[in-house]
């Protein structure tokens, strides 16, 4: 795969469950009850628990790691907005494509995560030194 504009990154697909959200809460130390307490979360505008934004973002980072290897950890940048809530039972797909290659060789990608209904969970841009072309 080349780093040409339009090149698609290989998507990462994950099935979310409450157990996985609880496990992330434990690993990350983020015990916000919006993520882990169904009774509390039911009383919020979300109506139920939602995944941590950083968990969904980790799926996107996995996609960038798979595409760019060590270069992602060695100069990678991202800027995203969370657009919707990922919920237990959702299938989350992280995807992206190359939008430009800068003069200094950075590869910039438009990135997003969507659920199984096609609803946007996050979007933004991630870029990487182009030591390695996306694979």
């Amino acid at each position, binding site marked *: 795969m080349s780093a040409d504009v339009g090149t698609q990154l290989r998507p*990462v697909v*994950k099935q979310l469950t409450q157990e*996985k959200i609880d*496990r*992330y809460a*434990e*690993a*990350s*130390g*983020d015990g*916000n*009850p*919006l993520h882990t307490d169904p009774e*509390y979360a039911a009383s*919020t505008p979300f109506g139920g628990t939602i995944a*941590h*934004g*950083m*968990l969904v*973002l*980790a*799926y996107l*980072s*996995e*996609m960038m*790691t*798979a595409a760019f*290897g*060590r270069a*992602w*950890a*060695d*100069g*990678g*940048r*991202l*800027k*995203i*907005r*969370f657009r919707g809530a990922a919920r237990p039972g959702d299938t989350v797909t992280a995807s992206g494509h190359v939008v430009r290659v800068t003069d200094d060789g950075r590869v910039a990608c438009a990135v997003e995560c969507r659920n199984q209904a096609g609803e946007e969970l996050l979007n933004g841009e991630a870029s990487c030194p182009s030591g390695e072309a996306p694979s």
Partner: protein
Amino acid sequence: MRFEKGQRFGEVRFELTPDAVREYVAAVEDGAVVALGGDAVPPMAVAAYAVRGLLSEMPLPPGSIHAGQELEFVRPVGLGETLAVTGRVLSAGERKGWTLATVELDVRDGAGQPVMCGRATLTAPVEAA
């Protein structure tokens, strides 16, 4: 808690132990970690543990929401490294019953060199903030 522009948090030190990183990788089901090579830690693990450190100093009220994130990974971080995170409120305000704040985080290694930096945009219910 209430956010105030200029407010600072940390420094909080944290170690990326093999057990902690293994727990993180399992939790996010990261199947690409081998592509990092060597003993490099997934960059989002560094971010997650940095945020964990900051949350120990600025506990967010229940119902807080992560609205946006910027991150720059300056260099790969290896297993077993001890890092330090500091945070600073860049902006804070209230709108329609919610506090909106942007918090800058800065993560450095034992030599004081930057390894990761970023900005998180957070919202929290005003009555609880």
